[in-house]
């Protein structure tokens, strides 16, 4: 059983409040491009929403393949997070992730993936439709 976020995507209305609070708490700005949750309303079948985020999968190839060993274990949670100081922004994790769960920040200097806000994910708190759970 993975320890990451879970989503009932069929309930999602695409409002992106999760992405807003995520960027606010992590970079102090409202900026979905720097969020760890990517919300995409799909085109050309409008009305469908795709959520991309790190599920904290058991196989975690990102951890195995990271040449800088910048994806580290949060021992308390048993989950992995990106150490932005050590990440070189090489993009290997993005390449190997089977779930489109991580990506590079807009300046391409480090990888972004869900760190569960250290234990109390803000996105779960703000989601008005109860889409997200742990």
């Amino acid at each position, binding site marked *: 059983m993975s320890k990451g976020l879970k989503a009932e995507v069929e309930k999602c209305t695409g*409002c992106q409040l999760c992405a807003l609070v995520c960027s*606010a708490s992590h970079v102090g700005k409202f*900026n979905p491009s720097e969020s760890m949750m990517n919300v995409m309303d799909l085109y050309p079948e409008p009305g469908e929403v795709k959520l991309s985020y790190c599920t904290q999968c058991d196989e975690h190839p990102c951890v195995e393949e990271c040449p800088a060993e910048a994806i580290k274990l949060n021992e308390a949670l048993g989950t992995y997070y990106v150490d932005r100081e050590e990440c070189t922004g090489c993009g290997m994790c993005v390449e190997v992730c089977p779930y489109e769960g991580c990506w590079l920040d807009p300046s391409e200097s480090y990888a972004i993936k869900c760190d569960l806000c250290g234990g109390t994910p803000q996105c779960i708190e703000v989601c*008005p439709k109860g889409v997200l759970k742990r």
Partner: protein
Amino acid sequence: MADGYTGNVLRVDLSNEKTSVEPLNREWAKEFIGGKGLGARYLFEELKPGTDPLSPDNVLSIWTGPLVGTMVPLTSRYAIITKSPLTGTFLDTYAGGYFGPELKYAGFDAVIMNGKAPKPSYLWVNDGKAEIRDAKNVWGKDIFKTEELLREEVGEKAARVAGIGQAGEKLSRIAGVTSDITRNAGRGGAGAVFGSKNLKAVVAKGSLGVEVPKMDEFVKMAKEMLLKDVVENPEHAGLVTDGTPIIVDMSQDAAILPTNNWHSGQFDGYQGIDSDALKKRVFVRKKACFGCGIACGSWAKVKDGAFKGASTEGPEYETLGLAGSNCGIRNIEAVVKFAEECDRLGLDTISAGAAVGFAMDIYEKGIITNEDTGGLELKFGNEEAYAKMPEMIAERKSKIGDLLAEGTLLAARKIGKDTEKLVVHAKGSEYPAYDPRGSIGMALAYATSDRGADHNRAWPVASDAYGDGDPWSTEGKAAICHEEQIMKSYKWSMVFCDFYGVSPEGMAKYYTAVTGQPADESWLVAVGTRVWNLVRAFNVREGFSKKDDDMPERMETEPLPSGKTAGKAVPRESFDKMLAEYYQLWGWDEDGRPTKKTLEDSGLGDIAARLDYLK
């Protein structure tokens, strides 16, 4: 500065294909906030009076505001501000979706465009930079295809597009600007202004973000407001379960549902187009705009029959009224098709629905024939002919399509034969779906709306036809219009969505949290008063006065036939009484012009000094 604003305005000289960036006028921002107010201030300054709205000299601007792109719920909108080719008045028209926040993230509070591009073009805005690009691959294409192709061209699958379809390209005065496929800045013909400038679209993608002074405190407050004031707000319950289509039954009951070109206030087929029909027959899922905890939108898709596969977000109440009952259409599937066609081609569903209802009326009266309609049997309720009309209008096909593309009033004037009397409008803008003959305050609301007949400036119908008030008493109606026009003026300057039932105190709290500036209800009222007076001064400068603040003769002379409104009309003396009272409340003269004192008291002394009638 972390105050919600990006601080930058993008200037676009389309004629010379040049762009530049200038700092936002922060003095004006403090007085007018953003959106409607700030856009109006810039437009008043920059537009030469008497300018033809479809000439290169018209100024076309897109405005956000300090709250847009933050976590303040229901502030995803943007305003297009220009002079309307439909009414000749000031025009502010809004769309939700995702474009507004994206423009902020791309680095701009506003984009102001002048001139006319030498060839079909689009504007690409990305992280503080802008570029005018060749639109040859998308000119002539519909909205759906345009959005898809432009995302490919700029190489950003999450880029947001605000653009026009064929209707705007062909300068239809009822063409809107569409973003996110179905979100329309519909009213007033902003799409034609795009078209007249050879501008297909503005495409935005940004990663610069928006900052506020104290993020931690802000998030705490926003989370609390989201839960208590949005998700758990009882005012929003109907929007969560149904959205605006719930109003169809309310209007049928109040007998104010426009039916067969306003010849009735009740429609025997209403159950085929109401919220229950929508939910049972075409509903797919709920859809939100950016940052919205309500999600009033419904994705609808037709499951079978002649219109199988047609889909739209909505249809909203106004579409169900004007393009449903007012055209005698009794099946939700047909309305979904009509709305999809309007989305695809870039037409305002209110004006297009009203125009088709009018055309059906004069077809049935024998004033136009199959020769004018390209062979279509344009009778009330003929779904097949009806569903073809958006394309006829947008592409200006057949004589009637070409005429209706000019808006219903201009079409009637060209047709002659007394058909103008059948057009239900104020200042050339077709009425939304609330018949004043069963909500007398709406006659005043439509007559005094700054962009022509409109339901988003004052909505007295809520307290009379839908509430406990007396729908035919003039008492207090001027005061409702006055008070709501002030409130909407500041609400639209903050670019809130209409559907957020936020209190003035709530709005002030948000404003302060985002900008760091103090605010309270009385300050907001001062801003709203200033904005509405400024826009009125703009319209007076364009030649508008009391003579234009009117209702169509039919509202007085043609009583409704059934239900609660049977035998009811709007007596002329009642209308005149409300209007006189309204001018008094606003401090305008007998001809409806703001006095020098009124302007000075609203902080518009500099504007007063430049108005000829005050010299």
